[in-house]
């Protein structure tokens, strides 16, 4: 499966979501059942990379959403230098490459595309960081090699982050 040259927003009348298989059921299910609904509900936005010459086939996809990170308790007055919170962050909620398109570096390309998207949104709606969900240690390793750091582990789900200032330096 050869990718086309441009990510486009998921359109369920064009893109065949049921044929997408990245090897991780949760990521297949999200694309098939929730991605379009979450867009309609204003929760998140999903971008797909169609195959060259066959735009129904999806080579890779990512989903971005906006969320907030909060501190459990108010800081004491001594910690005035801390920002008001919750602080906004951009979340790469999902990122996956079709099995039929793996081995071409599309994971890297999709991550860079998602970071560029986050960078563009940040121009209008500033965020502290880009946060990602990692479903297992393999995925965690994928993000850590690019400088993402562990934020926390909740309900067996790891979250990692990359400061927005780092993302800005990547694209200026």
């Amino acid at each position: 499966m050869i990718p086309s040259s441009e990510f486009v927003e998921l359109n369920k009348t064009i893109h065949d979501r049921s044929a997408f298989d990245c090897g991780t059921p949760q990521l297949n299910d999200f694309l098939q059942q929730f991605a379009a609904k979450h867009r309609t509900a204003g929760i998140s936005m999903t971008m797909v990379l169609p195959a060259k010459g066959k735009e129904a086939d999806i080579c890779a996809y990512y989903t971005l959403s906006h969320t907030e990170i909060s501190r459990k308790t108010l800081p004491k007055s001594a910690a005035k230098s801390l920002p008001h919170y919750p602080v906004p962050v951009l979340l790469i909620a999902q990122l996956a490459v079709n099995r039929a398109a793996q081995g071409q570096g599309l994971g890297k390309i999709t991550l860079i595309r998602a970071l560029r998207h986050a960078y563009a949104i940040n121009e209008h709606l500033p965020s502290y960081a880009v946060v990602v969900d990692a479903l297992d240690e393999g995925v965690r390793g994928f993000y850590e090699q690019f400088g993402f750091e562990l934020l926390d582990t909740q309900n067996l789900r790891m979250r990692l982050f990359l400061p927005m200032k780092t993302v800005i330096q990547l694209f200026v």
Partner: protein
Amino acid sequence: MATTRIDMRIDETVKAAAEKAAALEGMKSLTDYIVQLIEKDAQRVIKAHGMLVLKDDVFDRFIQACDAANTPNKKLREARAFAKRKGIR
């Protein structure tokens, strides 16, 4: 407020339990009971998904890391150059 309809099928025993619960709560109808349940739970779910709460020290380290902001590492810069070469926008 404008209203709309939800059509739903429900297990008979669940419906019987819901009718009983609605009566016990002093609700005028089963609909009133279900509507207030949805209102309450939807707010809870939306709040739980829209916010990540961190322990104080974890939050403070996160903010410090964001302020310090390392430059992009070699792998990340290489990935960007790779994406550029491949010409995928």
